[in-house]
């Protein structure tokens, strides 16, 4: 027993039978730049129980991993401590190294010298070294107490649940369906298609959005492996990867989709008119409606909030008028429970509502509209049949201004860049120029973000060929001439360094993308975390962009962050392949962090029974029994068990106590 002296604590570490190998990573300069690795190396050698110390520039690299493999092969060590970056980053990597050499992967502890030490104490090198010594000592103390564990194998249901029927959900559903997996695609609105269905053209290829989307919508509806659930919501998710028990609740449409031919005879007789959500309230729709002609499933839906045929029974004209007798007013809500092996979240986005930014006058000046409203006007099947009109007088505007970054890159709204506004603004500008070559089109921007394939050329063409004028400067204010509703756009042209004022007939706000309004509900169902902007957070920004920290749950599309359609589809294919690889294996290994209960100690006090959110413990002949499959390893029952009868694998009391003693204690 010898003294391991640090200012933090004097600690006589008892001699330990285990032979711990400690591998210190420089991480290039990320660690070595702050922590004196040589000093740490010599200090670590002094720790009893340590039989081998190595340090290397990149432990996660192949040569780094080889150092560990060699030490294991030569039988020098039976425990491994890697002092490098966060375990949440490379613990899986190093566990594989151990199992490749036939050593139980759970005999590994990772000391977080990077994120918790060198990166956050860059200017206090001596203190960082002290802390590194303590963190290594704590890891060695814990390593000595680690026990071999075998992960639990669980069968994976070959069914995927996809939440959100936009382009992201559709493409994932098709990929998985084609790969032979059963899919439940759940969409809350009456039709799949999402926001893409509202678009006219898509950049940079100027394809017509409906042409590339509707075939996908139809094939997803007809795909033998895909169970489409539109006008439906996921209301409960229990269980774990491979065995999610999901409850889906379908709202009543009051129209039988099989019988309805979408002939539309019911529409004229319906007395109720409400603003059309699909057309962003530019036009009206009846209480019985189909969002847009190519909606899938192609059936009408009765909106029970506004229809007066339900509660109380007064109207019901549409019922009489309907030829195929598809309308059925006493249809009720249906709930079904399915087992899903994997879940993909593709909930898409909600456009930013700029009305709280008075300086632009949206909602006050009729001729200030948002880009999505513009998109609906440009669309041939839109409310204006493709004509660009000024809402105030329905005239064709001669001078148009696009205002970029509304609600984006703005501390008061969202600090992030929504990535697609520059491109869709330019796209709309070119479309207007095609229709009215003589029109004056100005784009007020901070920076043009044209980063994608063909984007730069698209931008060049917009400026040179279509004559769109680009003015670098965020618009300070939009003023209106009340009589004519003409608008005056005031900004500062930062290139020329002088203010600029332009009279225009129409102003279009390029609004930001925000998380879908049901993101909170989906998050509480799946327990996946969200970033500061509210989008779902991926397991690792670089290496696991579509995974989440909850095994078996994937995210893709704008639900994970603003992006355009190509990136969305790429991510949804990524998520589909992630889910397919899980379901393909048919089994998945679960972290063996579950609990075990010692029957000789458990005295049936029942403290744990009601405590477990997963009902993983039940009473059999007076003592508690653990259901390993249900247990997720949180350990709340372990610390609550007054008899000390429950043990948490990999986070046992001994292991945690040894770390505490090593951190602050004496002997």
């Amino acid at each position, binding site marked *: 027993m010898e003294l391991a002296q640090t200012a933090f604590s004097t600690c006589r570490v008892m001699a330990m039978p285990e032979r711990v190998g400690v591998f210190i990573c420089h991480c290039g300069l990320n660690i070595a730049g702050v922590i004196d690795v040589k000093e740490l190396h010599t200090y670590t050698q002094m720790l009893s129980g340590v039989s081998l110390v190595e340090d290397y520039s990149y432990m996660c690299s192949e040569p780094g991993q080889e150092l560990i493999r060699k030490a294991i092969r030569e039988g020098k060590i039976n425990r491994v401590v890697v002092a490098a970056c966060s375990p949440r980053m490379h613990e899986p990597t190093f566990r594989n190294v151990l199992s490749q050499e036939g050593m139980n992967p759970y005999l590994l502890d990772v000391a977080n010298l990077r994120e918790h030490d060198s990166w956050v104490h860059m200017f206090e090198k001596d203190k960082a070294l002290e802390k590194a010594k303590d963190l290594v000592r704590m890891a060695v103390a814990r390593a000595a107490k680690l026990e071999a564990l075998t992960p639990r194998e669980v069968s994976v249901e070959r069914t995927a649940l996809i939440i959100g029927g936009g382009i992201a959900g559709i493409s994932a559903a098709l990929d998985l369906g084609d790969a032979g997996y059963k899919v439940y695609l759940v969409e809350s609105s009456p039709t799949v298609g999402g926001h893409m269905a509202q678009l006219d053209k898509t950049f940079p290829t100027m394809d017509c959005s409906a042409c590339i989307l509707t075939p996908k919508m139809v094939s997803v509806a007809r795909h033998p492996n895909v169970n489409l659930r539109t006008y439906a919501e996921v209301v409960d998710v229990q269980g774990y990867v491979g065995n999610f028990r999901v409850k889906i609740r379908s709202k009543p449409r009051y129209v039988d989709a099989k019988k309805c031919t979408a002939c539309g005879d019911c529409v004229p007789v319906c007395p109720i008119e409400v603003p059309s959500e699909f057309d962003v309230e530019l036009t009206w729709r009846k209480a019985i409606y189909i969002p847009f002609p190519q909606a899938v499933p192609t059936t009408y839906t009765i909106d029970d909030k506004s229809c007066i045929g339900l509660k109380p029974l007064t109207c019901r004209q549409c019922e009489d008028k309907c030829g195929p007798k598809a309308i059925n007013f006493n249809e009720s809500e249906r709930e079904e429970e399915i087992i899903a092996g994997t879940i993909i979240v593709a909930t898409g986005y909600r456009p930013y509502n700029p009305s709280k930014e008075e300086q632009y006058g949206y909602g006050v000046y009729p001729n200030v509209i948002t880009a999505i409203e513009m998109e609906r006007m440009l669309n041939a099947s839109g409310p204006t049949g493709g004509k660009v009109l000024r809402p105030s007088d329905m005239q064709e505007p001669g001078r148009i201004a696009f205002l970029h970054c509304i609600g984006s890159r703005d501390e008061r709204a969202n600090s992030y860049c929504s990535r697609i506004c520059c491109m869709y603004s330019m796209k709309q500008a070119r479309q207007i120029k095609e229709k009215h070559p003589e029109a004056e089109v100005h784009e007020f921007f901070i920076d043009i973000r044209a980063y994608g394939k063909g984007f730069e050329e698209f931008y060049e063409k917009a400026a040179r060929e279509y004559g769109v004028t680009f003015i670098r400067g965020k618009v300070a204010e939009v003023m209106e001439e009340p009589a004519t509703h003409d608008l005056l756009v005031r900004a500062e042209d930062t290139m020329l360094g002088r203010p600029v004022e332009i009279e225009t007939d129409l102003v279009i706000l390029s609004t930001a993308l925000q998380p879908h309004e049901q993101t909170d509900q989906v998050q509480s169902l799946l327990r996946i975390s969200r970033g500061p902007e509210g989008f779902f957070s991926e397991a690792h920004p670089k290496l696991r962009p579509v995974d989440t920290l909850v095994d078996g749950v994937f995210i893709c599309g704008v639900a994970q962050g603003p992006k355009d359609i190509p990136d969305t589809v790429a991510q949804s294919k990524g998520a589909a392949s992630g889910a397919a690889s899980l379901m393909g294996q048919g089994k998945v290994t679960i972290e063996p962090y579950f609990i075990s209960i010692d029957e000789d*100690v*458990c*005295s049936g006090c029942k403290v744990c029974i009601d405590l477990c959110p997963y009902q993983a413990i039940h009473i059999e002949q007076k003592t508690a029994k653990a259901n390993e499959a249900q247990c997720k390893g949180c350990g709340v029952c372990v*610390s609550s068990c007054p*008899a000390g*009868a429950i043990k948490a694998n990999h986070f046992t009391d001994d292991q945690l106590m040894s770390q505490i003693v090593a951190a602050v204690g004496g002997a």
Partner: protein
Amino acid sequence: MKVVFESLSGCAGCEIAVLDLHEGLLDLLKRVELTYAPIILDPRTFDRSEIGIITGSVRTDEDVEKVKALREKCTTLVTLGSCSCFGGVPGLANLFSPESIVKQSHEVNVAPGSKIVEKKDIPRLEHWIVPVDDLVNIEAKIPGCPPPPKFIAEQLSTLLNGGSQRLSKKTVCDECDLQKEIKRIDKIRRWGEGKTDFSKCLLEQGYICLGIATRAGCESRCIKAGTPCRGCFGPAEKVKDAGAKLISAIASTASLDSPEAMNPQQLAESFIDVVGTAYRFTLASSIIRKKASEGAAN
């Protein structure tokens, strides 16, 4: 087999518990050669003995000497009763700074007019009470306040046969036959508050009962008589600090969503005298054994 009894600063309850074997005591006396037990035998010292049984808490410097002397003179040392095992009720004195206790006895609580006299040639007080196994190694513990006579007889006969001691690994709940339904406590109640249903678990009715975190062995005698357990048998086999485990269990079974559920502040306020209840017999052997001087005003 030579046996000796030494009592430190205790109440002699453990000795009486041995005598409460009544006729059983006679068979015990036949099997052992009791050479020193000042409470019932006259010899004033002894030189060696196989088994040394210690009762009472280590309160004075003389107690410390006795413990050390016993360690030298006995091969097997046994702590009998909660005082020698865990510090017992006298251990609650650790709640007060040593100065305040001495001051209380020699200056504050003194009749007016009687002169303060320096105490000499009587034992000085140790600063705080510690369990015996803090001073010397011991071979066996017989917990309880007092340990039930039948329990003492069983434990002693195992030791007399040279066997190693086996205390129960269970908690009092195992021996308590009150009906247990669901641990979801809406309100913590003081003992005597409201009507008590003696067929159902007392903790589930909101009464603090240490039975859940206390070692079994007493056949829940207090609960059977209608009083919540106060943990005299000390922490269960696998538990280091019974008070901390009780706090953990109470906090975890406080109901969260029922209408009259307590919020954390209310929970803390309604658990009266946390230390005096959760650590009544084990304060001196708990993790935080004594009042930290930073807050020890009185």
